[in-house]
């Protein structure tokens, strides 16, 4: 926008808004600061505690994420792409029984699922997320997973204005802690005279739809439809997972070797992958 880059002085910036959630915290830099507006970007940092899940969401602009610390699993939900990560076929299912119980231990039998490709995250990774593509992140490491993300709101892929917007597909993102526990730094007041103007906004898109319609669309009861809407939710946008997630994920090279040699281990290893590292 005209005049945004008439900069006389540049300062280092600290996060302005802080949103606490059950499983972690997201800090936003005020995108209304002149430098950010000039560059046409917004910046934020997610910190996911162990065993926490950043709920699926999409943004109006493309983003680049850098993994500052920790490890995790992530997925992009690309429209039209098939669910290429799938557990055993139906024929194998029939022959399960005792053998399966032996193989998968306490779980009795392996839960079958089919979903889109997932990836592993570790320190130093850059992840590119296109605009409008939903994504999720799960911390399956043994320390906090910290991600810093740049969203280019001025990118031509973003057809809305330059305010960053996140559309969540679950939960009640603004409910984590007391009203999101925003911390508005002095600078936000100084520039706008009202702390809230540059505040990021996000919510669960299912909430805007009629619960009865959702129940019909998903062919589930209304109670489940209300769960889609995140009613009575207070975990925020990063949630703690009770037991570790079972996500289908291919093994690392060493693990594959061991698998070939028949050194199988029980399903449900670290990060939900089938085989240990």
């Amino acid at each position, binding site marked *: 926008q005209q005049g945004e880059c008439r900069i006389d002085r540049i300062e280092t910036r600290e996060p302005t808004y802080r949103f606490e959630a059950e499983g972690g915290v997201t800090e936003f830099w005020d995108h209304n600061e002149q430098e950010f507006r000039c560059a046409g970007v917004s910046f934020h940092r997610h910190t996911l505690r162990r065993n926490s899940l950043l709920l*699926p969401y999409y943004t109006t602009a493309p983003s680049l994420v850098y993994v500052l610390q920790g490890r995790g699993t992530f997925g992009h939900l690309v429209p039209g792409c098939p669910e290429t990560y799938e557990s055993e076929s139906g024929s194998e299912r029939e022959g399960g029984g005792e053998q399966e119980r032996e193989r998968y231990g306490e779980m009795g039998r392996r839960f079958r699922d089919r979903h889109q490709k997932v990836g592993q995250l570790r320190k130093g990774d850059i992840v590119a997320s296109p605009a*409008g593509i939903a994504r999720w992140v799960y911390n399956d490491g043994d320390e906090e997973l910290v991600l810093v993300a740049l969203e280019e709101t001025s990118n031509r892929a973003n057809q809305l204005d330059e305010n960053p917007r996140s559309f969540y597909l679950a939960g009640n993102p603004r409910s984590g802690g007391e009203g999101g526990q925003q911390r508005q730094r002095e600078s936000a007041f100084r520039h706008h005279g009202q702390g809230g103007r540059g505040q990021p906004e996000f919510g669960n898109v299912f909430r805007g739809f009629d619960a009865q319609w959702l129940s019909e669309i998903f062919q*589930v009861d209304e109670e489940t439809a209300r769960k889609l809407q995140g009613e009575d939710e207070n975990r925020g946008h990063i949630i703690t997972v009770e037991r570790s997630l079972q996500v289908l994920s291919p093994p690392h090279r060493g693990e594959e070797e061991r698998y070939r040699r028949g050194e199988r281990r029980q399903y449900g290893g670290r990060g939900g992958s089938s085989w240990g590292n």
Partner: protein
Amino acid sequence: GLEETVCSARVKENIDRPSRADVYNPEAGRYSTVNCFTLPILRFLGLSAGKGVLHENAIMAPHWYTNAHSIVYFTRGEGRAQVVNHRGEAVFDGDVNEGQVLVVPHNFAVVKRAAGRRLEWVEFNTNHDAMINTLAGRTSALRGLPADVVAAAYQIPREEAQRLKSSRRETFLFQSDAGERSRRIA
């Protein structure tokens, strides 16, 4: 080669013919698109279009366009639509009728439903290859999530998560249970 690219470019495509439908469900309706692949000049224009027909009580799955605004003109019939913003607020929840225009901004989620009569519309999208992402159905975002992620996100048992993922076999034109019931009564 201007004359080879622009002067002789095909500029017309009929998307109203039922036999031309890209998505078709005899119970629910049909949907056709024209984009830069079917009409290459649209790449220059940065626009695309779609034509939708929903039979009585049928539903078009909740969806969002990942890369375009959508300007919907209702050509026939009556129905209802809901549009939701990033805060999860319904910015539109009301009846839609022939002759009306509904603007659905980029990334806002929308669901449409035909009322007693079938609902038809033409939509203009501000991208030459507008991409749709659905929230329910066989190719939906929910379907692409691991069942455990669905279970954790919505606080439901794994089996329920699996049901939620796979309840609808259709892509995005759904026959309504209400419609089915009224047909049975008739």
